[in-house]
Each structure stands twice: as structure tokens, then as C-alpha cells.
């Protein structure tokens, strides 16, 4: 199981993680197209900021994940192979129950034609998730447990 861990002492609140997350989850995976021409996907990482302190936060892939238990449709599930909490947009009906129960505020409304949610999927197509790979300060690191 891999997890992404924020390190607030190195985060400068530049929000590059949010930008690269959006690009990675866009149709073209091209930064200009993703932001200017296509439907912009929802960010799956959020920089929290207060005064000089900031850090980026995404789905914790909780062991006891409230979103999985609460999901009405069965769209939110545990991937047995990776241990990650994965979300199937095809089965999601956009009832927002997961948003109601996520202790990290890590799930957001997404989609245009259909109501669905979006959340961190640990970038399964990449060796290292986009937010981690593009953080200039290693304020996000991968931890393998």
C-alpha cells in the first residue's frame, strides 16, 4: 500500500500539485488544453493554507474508510491488489454521501453531464503520482507500507 504524505515544513503553498493533478486527470493530459479548452477536471488534492503554514492533502485511503461503507451505489470500493480506495464513476450517482462522511474533505463533486464525485486515485498510470512528482520541494512524498 502506498500513501502520499504531506510535509508542511517544506510546503510553500505554490499549488503546483493541484495544477498537475488536474492535468493528469484531464482528457488530453496537456496543461494548456486541460485548463483552456477541455472540461477542467476537479482537483483531487487540496492545498490548505493559513498564515505561513500550508500543506497539500488528498485521499488518505483509510483502512476503515467511511466513504466505502457509506456509498449508496457501491461505487466506492477497496482495490484488493493495491489496498487503495477506488471510485468507479460509472456506478457513482452523485448522491454526495461520501462527501458528507469523508473526514479529510478529500472528495469533490465532479462531472458535467452526470453528477459524480472525484478523488485521488494515486495516479495508477504513473510510476509516481503527479502531485508528488511535480512538487518542487518534496513536500509530498510517497510512503510504502
Amino acid at each position, binding site marked *: 500500500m502506498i500513501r502520499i*504524505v504531506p*510535509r508542511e515544513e517544506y510546503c510553500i503553498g505554490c499549488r503546483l500539485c493541484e495544477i498537475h493533478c488536474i492535468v493528469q486527470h484531464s482528457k488530453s493530459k496537456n496543461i494548456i488544453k486541460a485548463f483552456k479548452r477541455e472540461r477542467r477536471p476537479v482537483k483531487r488534492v487540496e492545498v490548505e493554507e493559513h498564515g505561513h503554514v500550508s500543506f497539500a*492533502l488528498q485521499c488518505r485511503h483509510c483502512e476503515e474508510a467511511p466513504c466505502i461503507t457509506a456509498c449508496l*451505489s457501491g461505487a466506492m470500493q477497496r482495490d484488493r491488489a493495491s489496498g487503495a480506495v477506488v471510485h468507479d464513476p460509472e456506478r457513482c*450517482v452523485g448522491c454526495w*454521501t461520501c*462527501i458528507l462522511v469523508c473526514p479529510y474533505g478529500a472528495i469533490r463533486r465532479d462531472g458535467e453531464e452526470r453528477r459524480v464525485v472525484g478523488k485521488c486515485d494515486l495516479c495508477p498510470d504513473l510510476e509516481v503520482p503527479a502531485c*508528488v512528482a511535480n512538487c518542487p520541494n*518534496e513536500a509530498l512524498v510517497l510512503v510504502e507500507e
Partner: protein
Amino acid sequence: MKSYRYAVIGNSAAAVNACDAIRSLDGEGSLAVFSEERYRCYSRPLISYLVAGEVSAHGMYYRPARYYQNMGIDFHAGVKVTSLDPAGHLLVTREGEKVKWRKLLLATGFRPFIPPIEGLEEVDYLTFVDWDDAKRMLRLTAKPVASLVIGAGLIGMKAAEALHARGSAVTVVEKMERVLPLALDERASAMVSERCRRENIGIITGQSVSRLEPRGGHRGKAVLEDGSEVPFDLLVVAVGVRPRVELAEEAGLECAGGVLVDKHQRTSHEDVFAAGDAVKAMDLVRGEPAVNALWPIAALQGKYAGMNMAGREVPYPGGNSMNAVEFFGLPVLSAGVVNPPDATYEVITRQGDDGDYRKVVLRGDVLVGMLVAGNIERAGILTSLIQERANVRRVKGFLLEEGFGHIHFPRSVREERIIEAVAGLPKPAGEKAGAGKGKARADRGKGRAR
């Protein structure tokens, strides 16, 4: 005679999550599910989405088609259990079959409450709680009809929304002064009502139906308290639900407005467990057992019941009332106390320019309730604070802010919650002596620590 290590009566959220939990601990023990309905497990809350055409029949299923097979579950579909003998570890089906079990789960759910309204029995009215109800509604709205929904609770409002999506002219009559009186507060109710009225859904509140005048089949006329009349081609009765406790009561298990369970979801008989909408279990906010007939609560109770049935003694962490709804583009989330009963509660609200509305309810330094409408993102952080019974004195001023989050918690709390694994990580390259930006970039993606 068939004999199972585990028998589950019911086939919805509590039942299936119990099966999952049992199988996570015991892959071998024989397991049977007895379901009155013929469907494999589907999501009841999705029936309004089905009628509205937002979900296909295929999308209704909560688990894949091969679920029972893959999990090694003997699935008795369309088999109603009519009596229980806890002492003899026996159940009897409607067909008279006797089945032995060692551990039993009662997940019998709720039934719609049918109020005593004069004339109701002569009308072919609908309830709106299961797939068959949805099918009936779809059939009866093949052509646009005038519909009347009695009750503006969650089920009634979802029925109204579904009927509206079917092109039906809808009127909702609610006895209380406002829609969704339990899930929402006054202001949020008004916001939802306004959206509904804009969509030409008639909302009549503070009125009950005095009598119904049947006109054959599904058609009729409702006469309200004030004498006004509402004719309808289709009537939906949605004034509330009641726990289905008959089976438990007749078996001599302790019930009081719901099957009573201990912290391990165990009933008054040590081998009989109960979970879901039929059950009175610990409510974290009220501090006493309550029936919370909600899908997420049923699923959670089922999970804990299952673990305890399989021998791992784990207490149910407790639940609380909560609701997530969206009506015509207005999402509203609420949890815990949204309508404080007296002045010992502190209420803080914020109304944004863009129609957003947020509210928190505190008792002393403990957050006991929240409601957000419009911008609902990250509301789960508030829900978790309610569930943790956390002292929020230091963050009180930030609770309703847009950017409220873990950043406002004391660092130690934040780290405990989020940064479980920070200790022992190498310092980033950028902080090492002489290392410039180039070095940090070269190291990009190598931050994988063990």
C-alpha cells in the same frame, strides 16, 4: 434439515456489509442469506434515480452479479422467514422449511407507515421504498399524470422529484410547516421549497389530508384540512417508516421502538445479532440508542455485526443522523442536530452572497450538528468532528470559513490525523547544503521512502 454457521435475514445494506465482514474473518463457515425480495442486493436509495432515468436497472445493483457465488453465500431469494426460535437456533420459512443456524443476523429493515386517512384503502396508492414501487411508478407515469405526494420527508421529496422527471404535475402535502422538517433547518427547507416551486412542483405545508375521495383505480381527490381539494391520477403515501420488528418481537427478543442491541450489535439472545433500519443502536450525538434508518448507518452496523458474529469482538463506534440530498441543482448536507431543541445550544450561521448557506450547532465546546447548502465541498470534516465529539473551542471561529480544514487544528492533532508516517523521512534535497533547484529537480519522484 439445512444448517448454517451464519444465517442472515435481509438482503440490503446491513445484510451485505455483514456478509462482507464475516467473510473477511471467516472464509469457510457456511453462510446463508434469506431475502423476501427476489432481487439480488440493490441500493434502495437509488429508486428515485431509476425512475428519473439517471440510473439503469443494471446500475441499481450494489454488488456484482456473481457476488453470492464468489462469497460462498447460499442465497435464498424470495424466501420470507416467518418465525424464529432463538433457543432452538432455528428459523422457519413461509414454505414451512426449517433451517438451523449458529449465529443469526436480523436485518429486516423498515416498512412504510400508512396513516389512517379516511378513504385511503379504496385508492390504489403507491409507497416509494423498493424496486417494485419504482417499477409501478414507471408504469403509471408512462403518460404524464397529476400526482399527489403525502409527506415531504426524504422519501416523499425524492418521490416528487422522480415524478417530476417523468413529466408528472406534482403536488406535495406536508403536515409540518416545511419540507424535509427533520433533515433540514428552516432556511434550508425554504431554499429547497423555492427550487421546487420554480420547477412547478406544488408545495403545500402545514396541512394534512382530511380525507380521500376515490375515483377508481389510482385516481381520486384529496380534501385538505382547510377544505381545499387536490385531484390526482396517482397518489404516493410517504409519511414515514417504521422498523420491522415483528419477527424479533415474536421470537421474544427485546424491542422498544426498534430491536434493542448491545454495543456489539447483539440482541437479548447471545447468538442473535441485529443491524440496520430495524435497530435501535447508539447515537453518538444523542448519547443514547436511536433508530437512524439511513443507508450508511445500516451498512456500518452490518459491518460491525458481521465482525462480532465471526468472533472478533469489536464495539460499534456509534452513528448519527445525517443526510445528503440534492434538489434541482441545490445540494444540501446535514449531520447531527440541525434543529436545536433549546437555548443551551449555540448556533452559528453564514449566508454567502452566492446563495451558499452554512450552519454549525455547538453544545459547549463540542460540535453537535452541521448543515451546508450550495457549496458542500469538505463538509465531511465537520461531520468527523461531530462524530469524534472533539473539543472545537480553538477552531470555533473558523468552522464556517470556506478554507476551514486541518490547517486550523493544532499541529499535533493534525499530524495524528494526517501525517502518520512523516517521522524518519529524509530531508528534501533542497535543504541540503549547496543543493540548488537543479538538484531538487533531479531528485523529483525519488521521494519514495520506506
